[in-house]
C-alpha cells in the first residue's frame, strides 16, 4: 500500500498513517495476514520519528486491525471478509459516526448529498456490501 503523508496538515502524522491503513484494509489493498514494515523501517522510509509510526501501529492494534508480534512483525489481523466485528464495535463506531453526521447537518449539508457521499465512499472501498438505501427506507 501507498502511504502519503501531508506534512502541513492539521491532522497528526500518526493519525494519517492509522487512517490510511484502515482505508487500505477497507479497500482490500491489505487483507488479513498482509505484512506491514516494522516501525523503524517505515519511519526510515518516511523520514519521520519511529515513535510516530509506533503510535499509529499501537492504535491499529488497539482497534483489533493489527497484530504486532516480535517475531513476525506487524500483520493485518482482519479484513471485511473476516466476519462480524467485535462486540461493542458497532455501538462505539455509531457514536463517532453520529458526531460526523452532526457536523454535516450543523454545517447545513443536504441529507441526500450526505448519503450519496457515504455511498460513494463505500463504493470506493468496493466491498460489494454497500447497499445504498432508497429515500423511502429512510425515516
Amino acid at each position, binding site marked *: *500500500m*501507498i*502511504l*502519503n*503523508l*501531508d*506534512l*502541513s*496538515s492539521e491532522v497528526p502524522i500518526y493519525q494519517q498513517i492509522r487512517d490510511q491503513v484502515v482505508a487500505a484494509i477497507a479497500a482490500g489493498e491489505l487483507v488479513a495476514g*498482509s*505484512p*506491514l*514494515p516494522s516501525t*523503524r*523501517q*517505515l*519511519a*526510515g*522510509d*518516511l*523520514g*519521520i*520519528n*519511529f515513535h510516530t509510526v509506533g503510535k499509529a501501529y499501537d492504535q491499529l492494534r488497539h482497534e483489533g486491525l493489527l497484530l504486532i508480534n516480535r517475531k513476525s512483525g506487524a500483520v493485518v489481523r482482519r479484513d471485511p471478509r473476516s466476519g462480524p466485528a467485535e462486540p461493542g464495535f458497532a455501538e462505539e463506531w455509531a457514536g463517532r459516526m453520529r458526531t460526523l453526521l452532526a457536523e454535516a447537518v450543523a454545517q447545513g449539508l443536504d441529507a441526500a448529498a450526505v448519503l450519496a457521499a457515504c455511498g460513494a465512499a463505500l463504493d470506493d472501498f468496493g466491498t460489494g456490501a454497500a447497499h445504498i438505501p432508497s429515500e423511502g427506507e429512510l425515516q
Partner: protein
Amino acid sequence: MNMAVVVSGALVPAVLLVLAWLMPSLTPPDLPFGVRIPAARRNEPAIVGQLRPYRRWLVGWGAVVPVAGCVLAGFFPDGAGAEVVGTVPAFVVLAVYVTGYTRARRAVLAAKQAGGWYEGLRQGVAADTSLRTSRQPFPWLWALPSVLLTAATAAIGAARYDDMPQRLPMYFGFDGTAVGFADKSVGVAFVPVFGQVALTALITATVWAVLRGRADLDPARPVASAAGHRRYVARMGAALLVLAAALDLSMLLAALRIWDGAGEIPPVLPLAPVAFGLAVLVVAAARTAQDSGPAAADGPDESTVEPDSGLVHADDDRHWRAGIVYVNRQDPALLVRKRFGIGWTVNAGNPRAVLLLLTSVALVVALTVAWRAPEHTTIAATDRDVTFTVDGTLTYGTVHVPAHRAGQRLAAALLLPGSGTTDRDGNQPPAMVVDTLALTANALDADGVMSLRFDKYDSGRTGPGAYRDDPGRIDMAAFTRQAEAAYAVMRDQPESDPRALLIIGHSEGALHALLAAHDVSPAPAGLALLAPQDQRLLDLISRQLGDQLDQLAAAGRVDAATAASNKAGITRAVADFRAERAADTSGLLPPFADLLNGLFSPYNSRFVRTDDATDPLQAARGIPPGTRVEVTCGTADSNVPCDTLPPFTAALRETGTASLVERRLDGVDHLLRPAAAPPQTKVLDPSVLDALHQFDQPWRRRA
C-alpha cells in the same frame, strides 16, 4: 613521455570532466544542481538558464586541463615526483567542477527563495509498504559472472602453482612496473583471488544494501515513482554486479601476469575492464534519470494516470549541506541516494552511519599502508644460480645481487670473459686461476650494481654443450649468441632495471660486448671494454708474435735475419689461411709454428676464421648511439698495448656515444693485475677498480 602521467594527468581529468558535464542529465529533474524544487517549476528559466553557463565553464577548463596534464607529463619523463604531480590535474578538475556546480546551485537557490516556489503548496512524504514487504529479489543471475571469474582465477592459480616462479611480483608502481617481490607461497600467489573474493563480497553486500535502501518517492505520483524505484534498484544492482565481474576480470588479467613473474603489468590491462564496468554504471544511472523525468509519468509502464494527491515532495534542502552532504539526525537511514551524482551518500547526522564511514576509511587506509612495499627492508647480497638454454646448450651462470632495499631496481652488468676456455669467474683452471670476473662482480657490488656471469662454451659446468660431438663446428657467432641469451636472462631478473643494463667485456669478451650491443633489446646503457680485442684476431696475433721476435732478437737469442724471416713466414701463413690455402709453417721457429698450427687445426680453424673475419673497428661502429662507453688499456699489457687503441676509440666515437672515457692504466697487465703480481694471485689493480667505479657512477644505488 611517461605513460602513467598521461593517464593520470590527461585521461582521468578528461573522464571527470565528461562526467561533470553529464551530471545534470544524470540527476532527477526536480533536483537541479542539488536544489529541491516543486515538479511544476522544472522548466523555470532560472533553472534552465544555468545549464549552459555551467557546461560552458566545464568545456572552457576542459580544453585547458588535459593539455596542461600532457605538458606536465612531458616535464616528468619518469620517476620521482611524477606520482604526486600526476594527480594535480585531477584535483584541478574537481575544483573546477565544484566551482561550476556551486555557482549554478546558488542561482537556482536564489530563484527558489525569491519566487517563493513552495508557498501555498502542501508538502508531503510518501512510502510504499510493499517495497518492504515484498522486496525486489536479489539478482543472483547477474552475480554469476563474478562468481565464475573468481572460481576460474582460483582454478588457474591452483593448476599453475607449481610452475610459478619462486619470487612473485606483489607490489606495483604507478606505471605498472613491479617494485616489490615476495617469495612464493599459497598466501602470496592467491592474493589476486583473495582480492576478488573480498571485492565480490563487498559489491554483493552493496547490492544487498541498495535493495534495502530507502525509496524517496514523489508524493505527487507515489505509485509511478515506486515502480521507478523498483526498476532503479534492479538496474543499479545488475550494473554493480557487472562492475564486480569487470573488477574480477581485471584481477584475473593481473594475476596471469603476476604468476608469470612479469616485471610489469601494462596499466591498460586492468583499466580496460574497470572502465567498461564504470561506463555500465553511468549508463544505468542515466537511464534512471530519464525514468524519473517528465516523460516517464506518461510512459508505457504507467498507463494509468494517478489521481492528483495534491501533495508535492517536501522541501528537504535544509538536510543537505551544499546539496552534497546529508545531515539529518531525525532520519534513521544510513545511506541515502545522492542528489547530484551517482550512487549513495551516508547520513552524516546518524552516528551509526558516521561510524560506518570512518570504519571503511580506516580500513582502506590500513590496507593501503599494509600493502606498501616494505621499502626499508634491506635484502642481503646474494649469489643466485641461473641456467638458460641457447642453441640447445644448457648454460650455467651466477647472478650476483648486492644488498638492496626491497623493491629497488638495480643496474645490472653482463660480464664477458676473454678468449679461451675461461669460466664465469674469469679462470681457466688449473693453469690460470685469477678470478678476473669474480673480482669485477665484487667491485660492482660495492656500487650496488648487480651482475651476471656465466660459463661459456667449453668452460665450467656448461662444457661443450651441443658441440660435444663436433667441437670444430663452433664459431664466433655462437659465443655472441650465448652472450645475448645471458643478457636477456639478466634483463629478466626481478631486481634488474631495464633502463640500466650494462655489458663489461674483457679482451675477446669486449668484442662480443660490441656485437651483442648491436642486437640486444633494450640496448645496453653502458659498455666497459677492458683491454679490448681491438684488431682482427690474426692481425693481433701476428703483431704479438712479431713483438716477441723483436724481443728475442734484442736479447740476442735469435739473429736479426731469423727474426725477419719468421715475421715474413707468419705474415705469409696468415695470408694463406685467410685465402683458404694450405698454410706452410715449416720454416718457422718451433714455438711459432706450433701456435699457428694449433690455430689452423680443424679443431680451431672455423672459430679462428670467423673471429678473424670480425673487424673490431666495424663492430665498434655498430653500437647504438647514446651509449656510455669506457675503454681501458694497461701499459704492461703485451696482448692489447695502449698504442694500438686509437683507431678503435676513433671508431667508437663515430657512433655518437653519450660519453667515451679512455683510461690508461699504469703497470696493469692483460689480466688487469699489477704487472708485478705473482702468477695465480686473485687481485685486480687498484686503478682497474677505480676505472670500474668511474664507469658505473651514473648507475650507483645505495641500499
